[in-house]
């Protein structure tokens, strides 16, 4: 009997990633944030590994470059935290400063906290996907590590 799980999981990938992105973007105002966004995106990829196997999943560019993405994330985080120091602010000064006007609508605001959260998201995503990938590589027939 053909299982309905593989096509369903493939269909779920993009919606999950979009929800993850929305978690990231609205994190400042509502439930969400970079950390859950990264974890959710990682889970979406994990599902692909379990169902379709390592080879199929690695066709996506983000999956192949997950580890460097984590590095980029750390650069974003460190950059947001310490670049203000060069301009004479204390570390982790976010802009616009309290009291300054900001652009945005609803839960989405243009704020350097978004860059910071984006860095968190990339780091968490990179960690989860890289670890899954290494597990899949180490098991003899990659992809059957799920419960």
């Amino acid at each position, binding site marked *: 009997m053909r299982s309905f799980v593989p096509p369903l999981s493939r269909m779920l990938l993009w919606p999950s990633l979009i929800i993850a992105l929305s978690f990231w973007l609205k994190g400042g105002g509502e439930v969400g944030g970079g950390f859950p966004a990264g974890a959710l995106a990682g889970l979406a990829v994990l599902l692909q590994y379990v169902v379709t196997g390592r080879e199929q999943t690695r066709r996506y560019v983000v999956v192949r470059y997950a580890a460097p993405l984590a590095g980029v994330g750390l650069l974003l985080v460190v950059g947001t*935290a310490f670049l203000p120091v060069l301009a004479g602010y204390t570390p982790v000064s976010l802009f616009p400063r309290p009291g300054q006007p*900001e652009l945005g609508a609803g839960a989405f605001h243009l704020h350097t906290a978004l860059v910071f959260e984006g*860095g968190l998201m990339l780091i968490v995503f990179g960690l989860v996907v890289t670890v899954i990938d290494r597990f899949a590589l180490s098991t003899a027939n990659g992809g*059957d590590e*799920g419960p």
Partner: protein
Amino acid sequence: MPVLLLPILLALACAPLAYFAGRWRPGAAAWVGAACAVAALVALCWELTLGPARLVLPWAPTWGLSLEFTRDGLSGLYAAMALSVGALVVLYSRAYMPHHLKEEGRPARDEVRFQVLLLCFMAAMVLLVTVDDLLLLFIALDLTTIVSYLLIGFDRDDPESRAAALLSLVLTGATSVVFFAGAMALGLQYGTFSLPLVFERAANDPASTGALVCLAVGALGKSAQVPFHFWLPRAMAAPTPVSSYLHSAAMVAAGVFLLQRLYPLFEPAVAVRDGLLAIGFLSMTVGSLMALVADPFKRVLAYSTIAQYGYALVLVALGSEGAPLYVAAHAPCKAILFLTAGAITQVTGKKKLSEVSGLRHSLPVLAGASAVGAAGLAALPLTVGFFKDEVFFHALVEKGPLFMAGGLVGAGLTLAYTLRLWWGLFGGPRQDVPAAPRLLVAPVVVLAASVLVGGVLPGLLVEPSRAAASASMVRGGTSTLELAYHLDARAENLLAVGAWALGAALFATRLRWTPLLTRVLEGTSKAGPARGYRVLLHQLDRLSTWLHEKEVRDLRDRVASVLVPTGLLGMTVLWVTPLRDRFITGSVGWADVTLVMALAFASAAALATLRAQNHLVLVMLISCVGFSLAMVFAFAAAPDVALTSVLVETTFTLLFAGLLALLPDRRLERAQQEAQKPRGRDRISAGIAGVSAFLLSWSALSHLQADRVGTQTVKLAEVAHSPNVVAAVLTDFRGLDTVGEMSVVLAALLGVTSLLKLKGKG
């Protein structure tokens, strides 16, 4: 661009330029590097004619930190010394390194690496002498330490050279940490790290003795003074150009330089200066005596360096104006002798005095040039060295007869070991060896010429040494140093003549006392600080092995080794900080029923893990605990935490399950069997950890000022443009913590990647 930076920038550019030249053609690295160093020297000399200046570049103004540079006589003198000797040594290495690398069986391209490191060291040295800030001073000091490690251990296939590099790194690194402690203490005491401000405030409020001792220890370690002296003879395992640069004009000079730069702080602290005086005399004695009996010629020079910096230390401790002149006059003389030693080793392949003799016939130019260097070191007239002893005697005459006698003996010993060295190399029965390459001899001749010029025309030296002495004086002081030959019976002259007579007598009778002295020194070196270092290293090694065995014997002990100390620490904290109403029990109403149910579920799952049948069930039960807690957060109106917890829990359950698939079945079964049989000490460790965690959480929750903290945080989060309080705390209020945590996550990622890669290979 501020003019002051030009020599520094040129010095910093040397190493990269040499690297790119070396990429093009390995031989070009030395010429480009030396040319750049000479350019920096010219720029420096031009700037010194413009008079003293300071440059302040704000760096992190909110922390009160700035990059401060100075141009005064002291920095000018030391920078000129580092640049000129550096350029000559780089050219010398051009002739020395290809032969050395061939003997070591390494590719000729490694010469570029060597030149680049040497030039890096030069840049670090120039930086060290030009900065005018305690923190920058420490950073530059550590830069020199790190580069010197790479240079001393350049022959990386040779275990002796690696051990020597490690020893010098450990000693100079450890003492520079002590220096850092002193610098921090001063910074806290005066509220600034900027040296002129520190000096200004120290004039009314003298620096604490502890801080000064810390600073002095850092300087003594660098200058290889007793009791930190033993790294220097061992460091002679380095290629000769390294020794001739680092251990004559640069690294060891850094220590004495620090003391001179910080002298205004030491001026009122008479007790500390007396201690330095004693250490200086002790180093003089130890170094001179060892130099009298050492056989490898580089060792003779190393001990001589210890002794000579002992002199310089005495001058600094006495507050003499001649201290900078002493260091500057000693550097070229010592560099000449080191370079000579290297040239002889290259030509003859020998390293010991007992193996060579009579080289004056085959190497006449080298013999002549090194005779000038030796005469300079032994303070004979017509060389610049004469004046270094003149200022030394002048300082001692003011102190009294006992000091004069000590100085006389020290100078006599210097002449004796210098004669022994030169005569051992060039005197005695004739040995015929091939001629030395011209490039190997030329730097020695240039240095010898400078030593002679300084000796014949002392007027040239007066101005720079006065400027240097004034720079290290208390604010407003100016030096009145005089340098000239006086043909009369003043005390300095009498002492000098006495020292020469003593030295000549010692040299003439050397065959009588050498065996006895050798035996005595060998006996004492068994109980010296070098032995202490070895014993300490050995004991530390044993301690770490013991801890390692205790900790990693099995998994449960390893976990206990983290949990038990943490638990004890927590309970100690509770014990020593008694609070009123430490443990409060609140009330439970009907509204809390869902919360209690979720908590009960979590507790039941946690208890059930004790009886789990296999690892998969265990993973499921642990994730059950996690999900129940997520439920608690959801009921407690913390949707953010609940969401994150669900996602993290899901991810980790799946990853755990994947990990189980990677482990061999037999290992899992064995672990399962062990886990079902808890030992007595397992129960105790679990009890300590559990009770401590329980009490700490209870105490923390009892004092949770929900209203104050909560409302305040919500208000601040609104102001910070982030209505989501969790996000505001994570990114803004506690942003620096998050940065730290994220670096840990990335480190874990790197660890996982490399571990699983290893497994894949095995």
